[in-house]
């Protein structure tokens, strides 16, 4: 790639984001470009591609390549982010090609997410949009400046339409490709400011219902390449036998039979298991089954039994003698509750759930000396570099990560265990790439589950039924203590993601949230919507409990608690209208729930029926109104809501991991039940953006309201039978009906 301007002697800080190899960059979001060496005022454009910055390349044929800094796991982000660039660049979307970012956090890290490359937390659009829009706008200014020189007219007489610069008074115009190939550019380059961004009424792509996902065509003919599909010359396959209980180690390894399997080349003892390398997947699997390993028996996880622990957690939640770490304190909630006329108190709980991404954990690695190259479906290229470097004893900059498409992520592929497998085995067979694919059984058993948790909520009402104080105690282990210890320490032992969503936007005069960490050793992780998935379950059900205690309508109560919040009221009113909330249904109940998590407002109504003999719940339909602030791709937002709602239904009804004495009982889809086609509710989504509001996250926003909407519907259908424990298995439903 030839830079359009000659290399500058002065090297700009990479942190300015937009410096290109040896070329000029434009600084965006971090101030203007420092003074450049003089004498480069107008430099000739070289033949070939024009790369005005690290994000955009324009070919002489006008093809615009835009880097997607976030990874694609089905959330559509490799369309969304480049689309924002194309919007401000005024590019023709049909002539845009999207390129996955290489592992380079200094250039492509998320400015809103610790500056690293980690796709998660519904943070991509929120973190990158300002930078990317400004980058597009600035590149457009550069093209305008270049065109001004070519047409010999002032820039002020020019405008753009998709992919062209126009000079209306003379009728002349230039394609972006022509400008990229031939323009002389001014130095310093023009700087974009907020004022150069398009006004929302001029958006061509943002909000369009005709923009489709760029990754879809390859996903209907088998050509999409996921991590599991990586094929490299000379590649070997690997498998790892893991300890049945977390943190145990192999003590004796009898690999005599395993070695005899044709095609097996290496047996690799690891600190946490035994690796097998061979010529085919099948050979490594057979050999894995033939290993005879005795394991250490010292892991404290052997004491981990989830149902017993959950009983303990609930007791901790109820025991106000045990103080937690304050997560949020506004006023003196306890004093207010002590003076209340009515007190509502309830425990909400959830079992562990597994990610079960459709593509199981896998990675391919090649180790050559101190260099590592990785091909993997990872959410976290930056973390991958660090962990791989540690395994090999090198530095992260010597690790190159090629991120493939992800067959689902949901937080699981932000972990590094599958990366470590591949790098460890590749290190043992240096010089040949090794692909490790986990079996589904290992994928489920060795997942980093959503936390097991119990919550105790205590709310005081005055004589008129107004909420005077709200206490929320969350009892669970910590995710950050394992994954980001410094963050955990700095927060004084509070875990922001485990308690995520407990802070709400309802108006209550006194609100206190506490976190009571339970350290029992089993690794837990980031699951779809993380903490919000259960905190909103408790909150939204308690709001309905309050409505029932006051004898008022749950929709009306929410609107009352959100008096000053027009966006919140809008989604609630919209969804109530869509569902015909006031129309009674024979044998069916409606329940409502709302969430403001991830910067988006989402309200849902679920319509359910119940088989009282079996305890089985059927969710017939869910209506959803979502205000994501700006709706970049409305069609895709609808899809993401369907994902959230359907999985929200599945996890509320079916998904359950049981751990007994440290051993995970479920292992494949016959024991870990995911929702299927015949059980998926009908869904109707209204996307109701609010002009002028910030970009909200949508990847996870659809899941949190579904479970409580179902529970609230069951309560209304049954005259007050409350389901307070995820999942609502038929046995639990029956037990609740019987009491």
């Amino acid at each position: 790639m030839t830079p359009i301007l000659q290399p500058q002697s002065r090297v700009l800080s990479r942190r300015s984001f937009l410096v290109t190899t040896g070329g000029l960059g434009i600084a965006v979001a971090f101030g203007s470009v420092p003074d450049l060496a003089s004498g480069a005022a107008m430099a000739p454009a070289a033949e070939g591609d024009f790369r005005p910055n690290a994000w955009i390349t324009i070919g002489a044929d006008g093809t615009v390549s835009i880097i997607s800094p976030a990874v694609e796991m089905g959330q559509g982000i490799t369309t969304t982010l480049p689309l924002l660039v194309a919007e401000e660049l005024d590019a023709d979307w049909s002539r845009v090609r999207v390129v996955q970012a290489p592992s380079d956090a200094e250039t492509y890290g998320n400015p809103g997410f610790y500056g690293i490359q980690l796709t998660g937390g519904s943070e991509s659009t929120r973190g990158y949009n300002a930078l990317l829009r400004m980058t597009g706008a600035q590149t457009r200014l550069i093209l305008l400046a270049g065109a001004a020189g070519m047409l010999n007219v002032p820039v002020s007489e020019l405008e753009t339409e998709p992919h062209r610069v126009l000079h209306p008074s003379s009728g002349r115009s230039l394609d972006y490709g022509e400008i990229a190939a031939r323009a002389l550019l001014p130095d310093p380059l023009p700087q974009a400011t907020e004022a150069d961004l398009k006004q929302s009424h001029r958006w061509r792509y943002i909000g369009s219902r005709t923009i489709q996902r760029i990754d879809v065509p390859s996903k209907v003919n088998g050509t999409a390449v996921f991590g599991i599909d990586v094929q490299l010359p000379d590649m070997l396959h690997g498998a790892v036998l893991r300890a049945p209980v977390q943190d145990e180690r192999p003590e004796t390894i009898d690999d005599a039979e395993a070695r005899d399997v044709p095609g097996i080349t290496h047996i690799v003892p690891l600190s946490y298991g035994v690796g097998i390398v061979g010529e085919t997947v099948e050979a490594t699997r057979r050999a894995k089954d033939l290993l005879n390993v005795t394991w250490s028996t010292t892991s404290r996880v052997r004491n981990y039994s989830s149902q017993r622990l959950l009983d303990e957690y609930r007791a901790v939640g109820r025991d106000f003698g045990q103080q937690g770490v304050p997560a949020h304190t506004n006023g003196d909630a306890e004093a207010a509750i002590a003076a209340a006329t009515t007190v509502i108190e309830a425990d909400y709980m959830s079992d562990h759930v597994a990610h079960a991404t459709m593509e199981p954990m896998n990675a391919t690695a090649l180790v050559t000396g101190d260099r590592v190259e990785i091909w993997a479906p990872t959410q976290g290229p930056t973390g991958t570099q660090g962990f791989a470097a540690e395994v090999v004893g090198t530095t992260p900059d010597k690790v190159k990560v090629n991120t493939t498409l992800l067959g689902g992520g949901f937080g699981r592929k932000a972990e590094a265990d599958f990366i470590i497998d591949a790098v460890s085995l590749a290190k043992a067979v240096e010089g040949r790439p090794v692909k490790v694919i986990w079996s589904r059984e290992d994928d489920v058993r060795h997942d980093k589950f959503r936390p097991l948790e119990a919550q105790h909520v205590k709310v005081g009402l005055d004589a008129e039924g107004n909420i005077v104080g709200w206490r929320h105690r969350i009892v669970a282990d910590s995710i950050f203590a394992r994954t980001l210890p410094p963050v955990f320490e700095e927060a004084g032992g509070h875990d922001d993601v485990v308690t995520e969503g407990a802070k709400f936007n309802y108006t209550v005069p006194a609100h206190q949230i506490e976190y009571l960490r339970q350290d029992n050793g089993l690794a837990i992780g980031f699951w779809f919507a993380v903490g919000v998935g259960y905190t909103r379950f408790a909150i939204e059900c308690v709001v309905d409990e309050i409505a029932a205690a006051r004898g008022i309508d749950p929709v009306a109560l929410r609107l009352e608690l959100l008096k000053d919040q027009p966006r919140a009221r809008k989604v609630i009113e919209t969804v109530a209208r869509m569902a015909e909330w006031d129309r009674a249904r024979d044998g069916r109940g409606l329940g409502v729930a709302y969430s403001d998590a991830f910067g988006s407002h989402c309200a849902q109504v679920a319509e359910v029926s119940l088989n009282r003999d079996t305890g089985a719940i059927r969710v017939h339909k869910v209506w959803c109104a979502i205000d994501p602030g700006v709706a970049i791709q409305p069609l895709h937002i609808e899809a993401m809501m369907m994902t959230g709602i359907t999985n929200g239904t599945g996890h509320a009804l079916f998904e359950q991991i049981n751990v007994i004495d440290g051993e995970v009982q479920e292992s494949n889809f016959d024991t870990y039940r995911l929702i299927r086609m015949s059980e998926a509710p009908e869904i109707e989504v209204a996307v109701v953006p609010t002009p002028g509001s910030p970009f909200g996250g949508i990847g996870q926003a659809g899941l949190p309201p579904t479970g409580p909407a179902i529970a609230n519907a069951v309560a209304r259908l049954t005259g007050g039978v409350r389901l307070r424990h995820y999942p609502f298995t038929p046995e639990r439903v029956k037990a609740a009906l019987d009491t």
Partner: protein
Amino acid sequence: MSYAISVNGQIHHVEDDGQTPLLWVLRDTLKLTGTKYGCGVAQCGACTVHVDGTPTRSCTLPLEVAASARITTIESIEGVEAQAIRDAWVARDVPQCGFCQSGQIMSAVALLRTLKTPTDRDIDVAMSGNICRCATYNRIRAAIHDAAAQLGTAR
């Protein structure tokens, strides 16, 4: 052992254990990676191929059995139903992560070849063996109806 296996209209000679699941022969020997591994125990449908026209889980089909049949995979499924399904899938942006979609499409094409205008109930029966963790079920259902309607008009 050596097996002659017919895949996508071509005969391939494969050296492998007869018990090896067809899935791994397709993916690793023939490099046809469009067919996915999701569970290995016929629970998820990600590995669905057509065996003599019937949608079949290749993860539990031993090579020695598959060798006597005509196998078709996502890479070369053709015909009016396949085209209609693919078009409908693209028009509705059905795939999200896409990992399950090869299997979904193979099941859906087989459904449309047997039933010209499947009902929701027919779709439930034909498609419930295919798990989608991204939960694209509603769009799959709509796309199958679209494809059926399109074929009906074309006919």
